[in-house]
């Protein structure tokens, strides 16, 4: 969120004095862009364009980095910088000594996740899934938190990013199901025949329920996608709308007087956004582990 940068943009903008196009301004801050505004008014950096890749029948795809891609790489780097030294320190530390500082906090979160979320939901063999679930949680958390910092944006406010994460979770769940149940057992999760039904009844049930089961498999990643995307986008939209509301007032005096309660409310909503950032990352990772547990114990 970059209210100050928005002020600067407003001064240099093409709107006549007193006119504010709030919708366009909010959209400009929320959606992907081909330029990055550097912090502390250092200017804007134009990102490269046109790294076209010909995918044959799928058409031509532009793989040039945009603002959200840069933010994703930044979130990934943040995670690496925090956790690789933490892992090395955990290896080197003697048995029984407690970790300190930031590493201690991160280790507490990691252990909480591994014990309460991954092991509880997946059961035996849970340690194989723990790295992915933990990576998912901390990556999404970093992306969410980068949206709350001035001049930042949350890459999870982009439907493509959350859809890609949900597709990764979907692949994990289905492959885990196939490996745990075997191919025949996995097919039985779609073509399900209840016990005690034979003949025409069983055939009808399979024909009617197979599309429903298939759609059920697809709605779970869809729900993950839209939940994370909508939470992030709605929160940031609310904050931008509140901030921009100050600038829709006519005179500077009225705007200043109205600005104080509006800013107080915006700060309260930012605190809520902080909570929502943690909660949505937690929910995404927890639901992924719940789905893995469900399909592994489907028999």
């Amino acid at each position: 969120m970059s209210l100050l940068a928005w002020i600067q943009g407003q001064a240099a903008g093409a709107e006549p004095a007193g006119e504010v196009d709030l919708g366009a301004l909010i959209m400009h801050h929320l959606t992907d862009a081909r330029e990055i505004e550097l912090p502390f008014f250092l200017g804007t950096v134009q990102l490269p364009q046109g790294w076209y890749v010909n995918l044959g029948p799928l058409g031509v795809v532009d793989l040039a980095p945009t603002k959200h891609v840069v933010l994703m790489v930044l979130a990934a780097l943040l995670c690496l910088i925090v956790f690789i030294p933490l892992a090395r320190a955990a290896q080197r530390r003697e048995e029984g000594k407690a970790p300190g500082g930031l590493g201690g906090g991160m280790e507490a979160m990691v252990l909480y996740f591994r014990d309460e979320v991954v092991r509880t939901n997946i059961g035996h063999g849970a340690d194989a899934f723990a790295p992915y679930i933990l990576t998912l949680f901390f990556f999404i958390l970093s992306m969410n938190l980068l949206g709350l910092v001035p001049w930042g944006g949350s890459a999870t406010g982009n439907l493509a990013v959350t859809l890609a994460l949900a597709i990764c979770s979907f692949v994990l769940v289905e492959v885990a199901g196939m490996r745990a149940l075997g191919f025949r057992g996995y097919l039985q999760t779609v073509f399900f025949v209840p016990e005690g039904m034979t003949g025409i009844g069983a055939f009808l049930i399979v024909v009617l329920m197979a599309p429903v089961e298939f759609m059920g498999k697809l709605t779970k990643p869809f729900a993950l996608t839209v939940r994370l995307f909508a939470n992030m986008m709605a929160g940031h939209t609310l904050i931008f709308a509140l901030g921009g509301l100050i600038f829709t007032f006519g005179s500077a005096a009225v705007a200043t007087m109205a600005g104080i309660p509006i800013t107080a409310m915006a700060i309260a909503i930012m605190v809520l956004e902080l909570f929502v950032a943690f909660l949505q990352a937690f929910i995404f990772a927890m639901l992924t582990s719940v789905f893995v547990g469900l399909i592994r114990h489907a028999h």
Partner: protein
Amino acid sequence: MSHPILAILQGAAEAAGATDPASARSYLALLGAGLGTGLTVIGAGLGIGRIGAATTEGIARQPEAGGKIQTAGIILAALIEGAALFGLVIMFLMQQA
């Protein structure tokens, strides 16, 4: 009951966009988006309210299980809020169309 309401809305939209049928459609789209958002928030409020009631009653009956009940309550509230935000996303799309 909805029939006279629809007639009134259509009359209002036509009066507002009397010279331009496209803007009449956008007026109705904005109206629909506003109504939809309000109804979605009502649904979310009711659902999360019920979760709040059950959570506090559970903690009151058994304070030792307070931590687990609170965690479950927060998770369920986030799931219901996800459903409400489905509606919000559709409203955003409607508002722009």
